[in-house]
């Protein structure tokens, strides 16, 4: 143990950071992580982040300048961990019935990295307040405040925030499956069409403005909607019945997006809710109205 390193601020920082990581670890809307191995590795890295954050200021106060170098090293480690998460998610994506898609995976890997930085910040502030305020209670309150702020900042928008989500109707023009005039796919077999008519659910997503329209245009975003619906409500297909795969297409004139799915739980209410709560992906978000050419082009 480093001589003179005050244990109380460090201990409080580690505790605060770990608690923050535990709270961020809840099985979130994205159904990940779910297995104990994943919990443990996330938690362990969180504790590492907490310790680094907590130890930096006390170490610097004792003139242990190498602490600053450790911050850089840990930052590099976090990026390495993000790559690991991305590789893992990508490799299991290949055997999913309804894949997440690279955009969604990238967003999840980044969120994972960001959580560790929040933990580090919580631990840092807690140990700082404990070190200079000499008040453990105040330190924990400060840590909690940073944790809450970090959590709020990391909350992104959802599809429901930028669009109107409502039920639609599946119709067949010959063998073409359509929703409100948008063709989704050609379903050749008569019994497949019957199945779609019986169990198929249709959702229409209408963007509220140009920003929403261009965000929803992104295939990654639309794949995320379909994946979330399948993951949470269960998809009514297997590997040998690809004609029942959930599909999303967009209407080129209005920018509205239509979704057709066959689910294990064929209730339109939960499906609408899942689609509304689908997070917007960083890679998909577009804001043409924030720049002049975009505004000029807007009707």
């Amino acid at each position, binding site marked *: 143990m480093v001589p003179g390193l005050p244990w109380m601020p460090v201990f409080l920082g580690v505790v605060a950071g770990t608690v923050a990581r535990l709270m961020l670890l809840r099985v979130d809307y994205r159904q990940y992580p779910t297995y104990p191995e994943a919990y443990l590795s996330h938690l362990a890295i969180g504790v590492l982040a907490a310790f680094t954050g907590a130890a930096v200021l006390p170490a610097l106060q004792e003139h242990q300048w190498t602490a600053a170098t450790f911050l850089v090293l840990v930052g590099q480690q976090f990026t390495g961990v993000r790559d690991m998460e991305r590789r893992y998610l990508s490799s299991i994506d290949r055997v999913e019935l309804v894949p997440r898609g690279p955009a969604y995976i990238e967003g999840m890997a980044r969120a994972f990295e960001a959580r560790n930085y929040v933990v580090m910040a919580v631990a840092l502030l807690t140990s700082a307040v404990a070190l200079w305020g000499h008040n453990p209670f105040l330190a924990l309150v400060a840590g909690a405040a940073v944790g809450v702020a970090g959590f709020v900042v990391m909350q992104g928008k959802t599809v429901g925030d930028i669009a109107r989500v409502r039920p639609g109707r599946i119709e067949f023009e010959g*063998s073409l499956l359509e929703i409100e005039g948008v063709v989704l796919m050609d379903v050749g077999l008569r019994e497949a069409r019957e199945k779609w008519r019986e169990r198929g659910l249709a959702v229409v997503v209408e963007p509220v403005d140009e920003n929403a329209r261009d965000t929803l245009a992104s295939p990654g975003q639309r794949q995320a909607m379909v994946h979330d619906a399948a993951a949470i409500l269960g998809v009514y297909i297997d590997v040998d019945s690809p004609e029942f795969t959930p599909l999303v297409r967009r209407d080129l004139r209005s920018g509205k997006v239509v979704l057709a799915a066959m689910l294990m739980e064929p209730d339109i209410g939960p499906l609408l809710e899942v689609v509304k709560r689908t997070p917007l992906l960083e890679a998909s978000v577009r804001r043409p109205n924030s720049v002049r050419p975009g505004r000029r082009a807007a009707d």
Partner: protein
Amino acid sequence: MEQIETVGDIIAAVTVDRDSVAGLPTIVARDEKERERIANYMARIFQAVVHDLENGTYLIVRH
């Protein structure tokens, strides 16, 4: 020549009209009921999708 990215491969055609298909492995069915049955089996065998061209021919496509 640039590689064109395909969205799927045509495995075969199943048709009631022998003359409407050329250049593909084709199975000629006696009537529409048989065509439906054969197309269904082929889709299961190849894990593929059946598409209806509405000219008497079904295409079995692997996506």
